[in-house]
């Protein structure tokens, strides 16, 4: 366990850039043996990059990493493992077709050339009993629950003798019971002197499990090695999301006196795996407004976008459209009713490799118009250029192959089409994710322009700045539920951040639709 005064892991001035983006900028923190240290930050704050440097996946541009007081050069994951650094990946890395013991044998460097199954199974059982990580070594991984998968990952890391354990978002896929048993294991490991780094964006978990916390924002450490007990929730949120600067508010075009364009009442959606997609979601979208949907992705955003754009039918609840009354879902969604969507991954979901822009537009027109006959490719090519010009977007000539264009150009084509078709409402899922600054600005401007004709925008985004800059109202989603709805002066970084970090037990009663009435 070493000298308790020397940190198990000490990071000094670590920096790394990808292109022009400084993913980690002068990061410092340290963990002692027997300490649970939380690395807190929003998505994209640089937590994963930092972890990858600690595990030898990336090599830092500058800075120094020490293990037990000795400066080390972690050039590869196997070097990290030799140094006793173990990482439990967020996306678990097991082979479903193989048995638990086979997966572990594959991973351990000291597995003998001739597999000694009994010996490996005994080793697994010993470690598993010691840390109360119950897994049947003979089970096929495919048959395990997510919680068991994670236990196997932990066993892998513990069997190789990790003294510094890094857990990357370990609770994101677990049920509350599984989280409890994971935390119990973490505490046992802590008592045995293991240094533990837990990466998370959940404040409740920091409170519950961590001794100290380091907060990252935009690649920088904004709060350095602070004891969790000495800091308030507000201070943590502030550190995570930044100072609450009041965003200058644009003139709103929202008309809350009019009939809602789209209304959801107590919508429930179950995911194919049985977990909750949306629970009791009620909201109204009014003409001319920008309704921001904030929250960490994977909390029901995808399901909400599908329900709003008519691609999926909820298990229960009502969808009311302004002109046509209640409506079911069909293949083209609500596109024929003037409600279009920009999918979260348009390149995967909308682009056929090898087709040019005009053909794509002809296909989309055909799919969204129930009365369409035949394909008017050359006409479609002209129309998209006209639409693009109308909203001030520059797109390449219509005979270019779409899949060979840059992401930004593809996005502009899809955006032009979605905007042209949107008479009532446009559902934009992460419309600026992965785009450069210029395209981002174009996209936001084009989306705001549709309000002029009374069209509403539902903006689903993880980027709080984007939400604040664009929205008239903000709904915060968490675990498939609406945690709160904010408008006007309530809309601040910290209020949104607090709702995002909140657990569902302390649910806000506020419902989006009721709020504005």
């Amino acid at each position: 366990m070493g000298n308790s005064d020397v940190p198990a892991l000490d990071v000094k001035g670590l920096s790394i850039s990808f292109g022009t983006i400084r993913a980690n900028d002068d990061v410092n923190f340290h963990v002692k043996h027997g300490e649970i240290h939380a690395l807190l930050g929003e998505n994209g704050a640089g937590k994963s990059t930092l972890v990858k440097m600690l595990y030898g996946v990336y090599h830092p541009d500058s800075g120094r990493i020490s293990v037990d007081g000795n400066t080390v050069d972690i050039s590869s994951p196997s070097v990290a493992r030799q140094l006793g650094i173990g990482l439990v990946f967020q996306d678990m890395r097991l082979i479903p077709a193989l048995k638990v013991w086979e997966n572990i044998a594959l991973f351990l460097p000291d597995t003998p050339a001739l597999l000694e199954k009994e010996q490996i199974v005994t080793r697994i059982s010993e470690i598993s009993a010691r840390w109360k990580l119950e897994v049947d070594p003979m089970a096929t991984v495919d048959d395990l629950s997510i919680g068991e998968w994670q236990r196997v990952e932990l066993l892998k890391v513990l069997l190789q003798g990790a003294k510094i354990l890094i857990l990357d978002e370990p609770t994101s896929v677990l049920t509350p019971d599984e989280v409890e048993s994971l935390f119990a294991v973490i505490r046992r490991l802590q008592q045995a002197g293991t240094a533990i780094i837990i990466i998370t964006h959940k404040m409740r978990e920091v409170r519950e499990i961590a001794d100290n916390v380091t907060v990252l924002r935009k690649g920088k450490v904004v709060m350095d090695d602070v004891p969790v007990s000495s800091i308030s929730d507000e201070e943590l949120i502030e550190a995570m999301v930044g100072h609450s600067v009041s965003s200058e508010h644009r003139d709103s075009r929202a008309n809350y006196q009019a009939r809602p364009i789209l209304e959801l009442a107590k919508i429930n959606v179950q995911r194919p795996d049985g977990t909750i997609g949306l629970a009791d979601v009620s909201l109204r979208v009014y003409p001319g407004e920008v309704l921001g949907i904030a929250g960490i992705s994977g909390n029901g955003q995808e399901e909400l976008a599908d329900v709003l754009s008519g691609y999926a039918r909820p298990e229960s609840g009502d969808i009311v459209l302004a002109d046509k009354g209640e409506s079911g879902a069909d293949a083209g969604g609500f596109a024929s009713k003037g409600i279009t969507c920009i999918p979260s991954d348009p390149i995967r979901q909308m682009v056929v490799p090898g087709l040019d822009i005009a053909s794509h537009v002809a296909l989309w027109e055909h799919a969204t118009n129930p009365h369409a006959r035949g394909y008017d490719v050359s006409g479609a090519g002209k129309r998209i250029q006209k639409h693009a010009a109308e909203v001030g977007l520059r797109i390449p000539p219509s005979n270019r192959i779409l899949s060979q264009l840059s992401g930004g150009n593809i996005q502009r084509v899809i955006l032009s089409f979605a905007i042209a078709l949107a008479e009532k409402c446009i559902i934009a899922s992460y419309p600026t994710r992965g785009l450069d600054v210029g395209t981002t600005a174009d996209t936001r401007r084009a989306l705001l322009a549709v309000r002029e004709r009374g069209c509403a925008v539902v903006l689903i985004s993880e980027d709080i700045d984007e939400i604040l800059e664009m929205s008239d109202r903000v709904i915060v989603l968490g675990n498939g539920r609406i945690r709160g709805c904010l408008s006007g002066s309530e809309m601040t970084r910290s209020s949104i951040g607090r709702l995002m970090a909140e657990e569902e037990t302390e649910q806000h009663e506020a419902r989006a639709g009721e709020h504005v009435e």
Partner: protein
Amino acid sequence: MIEIILAGGIAVGTVLLLPSFGELVTERAGITNLSVEGSMLAGALTAFIVAKTTGNYAFGFLAGAFAGMLVAAVFASAVVFARANQLATGLICWFLSLGITSVIGNSYNGQAIHQLRQIDIPGLSSIPFFGNIFFQHDVVVYFGYVAIAATAWLLYKTKTGLIIRGTGERRAVVDVSGHRSSLVQFAAVLAGGLLSGVGGAYLSIGQVGNWASDMTNGYGFIVVAIVAFSGWRVSLTALGSYLFGMSISAASVLQAQGIAVNQYLLDSLPYIITLVALILASRTNSRQPEGLADSLSM
């Protein structure tokens, strides 16, 4: 007559058994090699030429193994390191081998060589019925028995086998575990080519005792089918190979007996019997290695 059919089936089945196990290991590593037929042809011709000129069968088999491996090496270089399309590359390698062996082998067409000597296993060969069927063969048939056991042992009892199976499922996981999945795949394809070469050699110098252009007659493709329909299992792959051999043997015995059955029906019987049997046998619990979907460019 039954004994003759079954014993003949074991011998003919060995021609398919060796390539089948080569392909089994290859596919378990996540690569579909459609040029098994090409490796068999290369093995058949090379073995024939070497055995004929040197008079040494051991040299013949070694040369056949090497030739089969050479075809596989061309295939493997393209698909493992350049990640070329496996189906297309496999077919091209087969066509190339077919053309080259036809041209080179032209002058050997119709020449004969005596077949391999039968070795009765002392004791075992005198067991009633079974002795005749299993233990009165040449050395390559016995080598086939060893290959079955060795493959099962390799795949399930060694770390190498574990790495091969892991590679066929999720290469990325094998790579992060500190192994080189592309080398594993390369080696697996080479091993497959080697066994296919031996299978081809056994056909030309062991079984029929001559060389004829395109003499493998689609066996290399039946091998790919046997492996898939066996559900990538050792036992069913062996069973499928021998069953195919026995159907061929049965067809030729029936023909020799002068039983009037349509020639083409008789010729297609082995394919039908083997496929039906394997499909029935593999209905339960067969699981395609995950990585193979990738290999079929799906």
